[in-house]
């Protein structure tokens, strides 16, 4: 591992006065992508950043079609970079956008891939999992503000034709000083303007969070706007996470009474949808009990939001009054979650 160029950035000085000061030790795959290494960087003014160094060395391993692997890696990198650039240009405040990007030559490296490309992001204090222990010790205001900021982030993406598709606790970062939450990792996103590989993948995001229509191969994504429906489900799933420690998908699967669950061969989503809906209702019932203990009078409104966002039938998802005119619109949820967060912050519950 230490031989890989991307793993040898520690101590290097980069363009713009950045210095690599710490290798962020994470599980081998936990780098937000499958071919990157993470570092902490600091600039001349003492500003810290998070550096994501792209590791293309895997493409040169034995038994790997190097050309194809390189093509896939660079495509993925370029897509993420372009989409982040778009977010930066549009000044999307609730998205983690790169401060800069560039490349650096690894001293002493003589191989053909001595140049390491990188992206530097603002350094968060951690993803929400770091600050959220378990639903037992939940801080209601913190959770609701996180949900509100997440909804704002998704709305910002949607308004610029981007569907995130991989919203989950590890992709919501927290900035303690500003008490702010931002969305990260657009590696599984789809952009209305730029078709990419993610558009062809049946389950672009984490399967533990993915809505059931994707797990069943039910093609709702032919029309781009339907991808926004996935984000709505994932937003609702975060409510499940905060109040019960598991995602909506995991909770529904749990309630499918031993049902073996979907497989890629299943094409009968519509036929099994009533069972999924029954399981969903039972999961919401249990969730409601958990929320009741923590959120008191706010429970009812939170449950209504969960039901609308996580509705298993994608055709029925979202606010009822928006389904025909503005399907999967997030505006109402931003307002509702903001109101809930404010009430929680003021202790009115």
């Amino acid at each position, binding site marked *: 591992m230490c031989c890989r160029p991307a793993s040898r950035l520690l101590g290097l000085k980069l363009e713009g006065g950045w210095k690599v000061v710490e290798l962020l030790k994470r599980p081998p795959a*936990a780098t937000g992508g499958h071919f990157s290494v993470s570092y902490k960087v600091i600039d001349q003014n003492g500003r810290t950043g998070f550096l994501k160094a792209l590791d293309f060395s895997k493409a040169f391993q034995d038994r790997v079609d190097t050309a194809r692997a390189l093509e896939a890696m660079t495509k993925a990198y370029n897509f993420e970079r372009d989409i982040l650039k778009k977010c930066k240009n549009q000044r999307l405040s609730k998205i983690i956008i790169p401060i800069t990007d560039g490349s650096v030559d690894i001293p002493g490296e003589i191989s053909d891939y001595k140049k390491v490309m990188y992206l530097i992001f603002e350094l968060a204090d951690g993803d929400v999992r770091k600050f959220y222990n378990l639903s037992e010790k939940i801080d209601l205001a913190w959770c609701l503000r996180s949900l509100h900021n997440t909804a704002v982030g998704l709305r910002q993406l949607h308004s610029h034709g981007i569907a995130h598709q991989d919203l989950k606790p590890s992709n919501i970062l927290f900035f303690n000083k500003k008490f702010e939450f931002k969305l990260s990792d657009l590696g599984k996103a789809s952009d209305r303007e730029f078709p990419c590989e993610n558009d062809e993948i049946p389950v672009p995001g984490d*399967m*533990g969070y993915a809505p059931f229509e994707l797990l069943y191969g039910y093609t709702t994504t032919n029309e781009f706007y339907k991808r926004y429906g996935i984000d709505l489900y994932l937003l609702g799933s975060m409510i499940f996470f905060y*109040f019960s420690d598991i995602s909506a998908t995991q909770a529904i699967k749990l309630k499918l*009474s031993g*049902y073996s669950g979907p497989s890629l061969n299943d094409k009968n989503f519509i036929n099994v949808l009533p069972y999924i809906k029954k399981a969903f209702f039972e999961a919401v019932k249990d969730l409601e009990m958990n929320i009741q203990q923590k959120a008191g009078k706010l429970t009812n409104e939170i449950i209504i939001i969960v039901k609308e966002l996580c509705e298993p039938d994608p055709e029925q998802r979202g606010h009822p009054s928006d389904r025909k005119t503005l399907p999967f619109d997030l505006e109402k949820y931003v307002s509702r979650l903001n109101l809930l967060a404010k009430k929680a912050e003021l202790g009115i519950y």
Partner: protein
Amino acid sequence: MNVNDDYKKRQIIPRWYPFNYAFHLGEIIPKNKPQVSIWTPRSYKLKEQEWLFCKKLPYAIDFVGTALVANDYSNVNAVEASKFILRNSKRVSVLSKQVAEKFLQIPDSTPDFDLSNQKVYRKKISLLRKYVHAYPQNAIAWVDMAFYYAVLGYNDKANYCITVALNLAPENRFVLRSATRFYLHMKNPEKALFFLQNAELTRYDSWLLASEISVSKAFDLRTSNIKIAKNLLNKSNEPPKDLGELFGTIGTLEAMNGKNKIAKRLFKSALIDPNENTVAQAEWISGSIGFNININRNIEAAFEANSRYFFKTKEYRTSLEATLKWLRYQPFSSFPVQLATYIAGVCLNDFQEVLHIVKEDAPLLLDKDFVIKNNYIFSLASLDKIEEAEEQFASINYINLKEREKATYHATKGLIKFRKGQIMEGRRLYSEAIERFEKLKSERGITLAKYYLTREEKRIGNDVKEMIDQVIRLAKKLGLNELLQSETLVEKN
């Protein structure tokens, strides 16, 4: 005392029970070991590594939850993580604990298949009403609510619930099969077939095909699905459990057409992994068509099959026990109540038991089903509770009865007259009943009427030797063993 004659027409009509029964009995999905399906291997691997890297509850829960979604039950790390969650279960939510338990496959409880507690029905309805109010899109809850309404006899309300469910989920097996059974309960087979035949799913779902063909054949209605069903049976790779009813349905058709060899082969396939309905069909067909099939009756909820089997082997007490379980399992169905009262009354000569069965297990059916009412009145009269018998008898609306029922009506009226000491009137009414059965060519009706006339004549001390000989002849011809071993006929010797 009688029972509706189902000997010529039994088909594999779908059962109707609450969703948890259907699920437990494997009618919703096969009970095979689920296939591992990992759609996003990288993120899954990451969760596993995160758990191994940092053994804390949030990582354990997310990893096990995702392993559950992927059906990756053999993943040793996920098993370890599940145990870790359960060791710390006080610190996690109920749902997280359930995820760990489910992953370790701590089994769900087995239903007791006893729906006889009528006090529960209203509570269930009240709960289900809350459910559909909270989430009206829950078609399964609507069907379950319809079930409990139907059991309580609120057919209009049940109809409304079924209509909503069909609108919500017109392509769902459980909804369609439940609706089918409901419309048959409402004596509307055409409507049952309408929904089955209009569902696209019926073209390739073996359970629905079986239901469609069975209902069509049971009510002499048209079906165009037999060829499709045969093709499906020839080509399908579905598990035997899913094909059992269809094999049984087509096997029944072949047997009815006299193709016993083919029928036997089809039933052999039907019985590889059958449900109780298919086993009951095999039991029925082996008795009525007359060929022997090896039937494993050790199937969950095989109450009807056991009832039929023990009836055939003249173990009437055991047969009654099985029939009582059957009627508690299908509480809105009148046939098991008819049979239970028949076995208790005719086979066991236990009229007190008949009264007990009706009062305890089928009070709501007493005023809805003529046969049950007749058996109840007959038992009251046999126990010399004449006043009560007459009171019940007066509530029968004679004009609405079918011809066969009218004949039975006269026989029972004859019994009451006998017990009141009006012997001549009693004889006249029994004769009229026998004449009516003769017109209907119901040998079974004739035999039973003559048998009970003999019993009454014997009771008042008349010479019944000739009558007994005649009844024995008829009973032997029809295979009515329950009469042959009765006191009325045996005491002759």
